[in-house]
């Protein structure tokens, strides 16, 4: 890889990282929010490195090298041995970095959605032990809950704290078999490669289009014997409302809104 192409690649990668982390919130589609400072720092560092390299090596045209550049110049187009590990030029394998660099700049892929959610079974998180794991829900009005909380209670809460409450869940639509559907979420701990599925089957409402974000209001629909693996989370819906997609699609937490 010629040195001017390397400069360009460094700048593209740096600008791409800043584009998704500093200028927009696109990075939330791929990684956890806590990685933002690291992404911004990396973007700045790459742009500085690219700018310095542009000044030192010449850009857009390569500057002829002097003697003590000890062979880092590229005249011969070597790199015939496999992975382009040839130091007379930059590594040829680095061309591949253009793919993600340009992807995040111009064609950022969407957040994971119903395709991923439909492929895996949701496993409700089992409580470790103890009595106060499922505190009683507020008595008045509609209770906003995370899918995680609802699923855990629906599967493992033998005290039945969900009984008699109207709850509201937010997530995207994942179609199931034979016209069934789920309100679902994906949760990540580091990046989208480790997404885990949370989904709650919705009864009594026709399915909105796949991947649409909805809030579902309804009451618990008991399925299977609670406290065993047979139980699965489900809801009898009374209202389904389309909502805009959240900024951080992987954050399955109750929105902090005053009131209600």
């Amino acid at each position, binding site marked *: 890889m010629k040195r*001017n*192409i*390397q*400069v*360009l690649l*460094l*700048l*593209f*990668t740096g*600008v791409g*990282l800043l584009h998704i982390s500093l200028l927009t919130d696109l*990075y939330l589609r*791929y*990684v956890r929010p806590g*990685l933002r400072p*690291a*992404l911004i720092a*990396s973007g700045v560092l*790459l742009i500085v*490195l690219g*700018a310095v*390299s*542009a*000044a030192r090596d*010449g*850009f*857009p*045209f*390569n*500057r002829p090298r002097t003697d*003590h550049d000890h062979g880092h110049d590229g005249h011969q187009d070597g790199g015939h041995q*496999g*992975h382009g590990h040839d130091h007379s030029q*930059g*590594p*040829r*394998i*680095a061309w*591949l970095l*253009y*793919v*993600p660099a*340009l*992807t*995040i700049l*111009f*064609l950022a892929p969407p957040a*994971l959605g119903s*395709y991923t959610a439909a*492929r*895996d*079974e949701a*496993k409700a*998180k089992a409580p*470790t032990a103890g009595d106060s794991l499922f505190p009683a829900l507020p008595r008045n009005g509609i209770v906003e809950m995370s899918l995680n909380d609802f699923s855990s209670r629906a599967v493992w809460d033998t005290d039945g704290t969900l009984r008699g409450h109207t709850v509201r869940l937010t997530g995207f639509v994942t179609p199931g078999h034979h016209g069934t559907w789920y309100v679902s979420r994906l949760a990540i701990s*580091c*990046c*989208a*490669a480790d997404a*885990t599925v949370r989904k709650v089957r919705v009864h009594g409402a026709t399915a909105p289009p796949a991947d649409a974000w909805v809030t579902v209001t309804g009451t618990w629909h008991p399925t299977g014997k609670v406290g065993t693996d047979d139980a699965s989370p489900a809801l009898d819906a009374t209202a389904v409302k389309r909502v805009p997609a959240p900024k951080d699609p992987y954050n399955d937490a109750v929105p902090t809104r005053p009131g209600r």
Partner: protein
Amino acid sequence: MDSDVDVASPLPESPAHDRTPSATRPDGGGGLRAAARVTSHALIAGLPVAVLGVAAIVLGPEISAGLDNRAVAAWRTVFTAIVIQGVPFLLLGTVVSAAISAFVPAWVFTRVLPRNPALAVPVAGVAGAVLPGCECASVPVAGSLMRRGVTPAAALAFLLSAPAINPIVLMATYVAFPGNPWMVTARLVASLLTSVVMGWLWIRLGREEWLRTPEGPTGHTAGASRAEEFRVSLQHDFLHAGGFLVVGAAAAATFNVAVPHFVLRLFSDSPWLSLPMLGLLAVVLAVCSEADAFVAASLTGFSPSARLAFMVVGPMVDLKLIALQSGTFGRAFALRFSSATWVVAVLCSALVGWWLL
């Protein structure tokens, strides 16, 4: 991804431009002139970004339609995610390794590490605790240690232990397994054990010809500016390792999208099969070592030892690491070393899990 490459092809800087050498610019000049030069170069470099931007906006809808297949979209997202979360750590690793190459004199390592390789291995293994980061960072650092004359066995022990036993990873493990601090201890012990055993194995059985000693800028040579050496080796190492990170991310994303996870649950009943199964899962999923504890915690239904194996194997052997290692040390090395490490890691997890969990 093809269309992305198509976008890349009409770059204004085709290699042909290289054949017309521009006049040598004088090297001197004050900081102001240098700053002006950097700015003007940055502006020139911004031009292709603008051109490609316009092209992408005009052609965007067609390209997006072509990529609309849901499996393809999921693949692209996972691929991009692995690369993005890897880049900061890779950059950290290459900054450290470039700093070692350019600024740390070789005698430091010979002074710190015991001369006897068999003793140097455990010391280097424990020293892995000081590099905060995930496995992407440790490969370039281990490469630069070897370049500076550290015995390969010790550098390899460091390579294996660094991503597994640093404080950030152990903290994440503690958070992921609330009420089970033994898991943290078990992970520390099993990871350290594996890396030391692998270092000693390399002393006994390793052959020089398998290992391609990392080339590249070798330390400080008289007459060259240290800052310039730092820049050259940083740029080279980052671009080189970044290319292999892309290869590894593509492989991991393919497995991630192609293999449904519930297939693995079929094996959760058998304690003997579940250990190697989760060991294999760690290889193909290529989860960052700072996150794998959370994934392990979510694998309910598996025995604690099997989850331990997932966390011990993950930072040492996975698809993106194999790609990174074959880039730095050669393919002959990466395949032998990774498979041996996998076996040792699974055995150590079984042993430590039986003892502590």
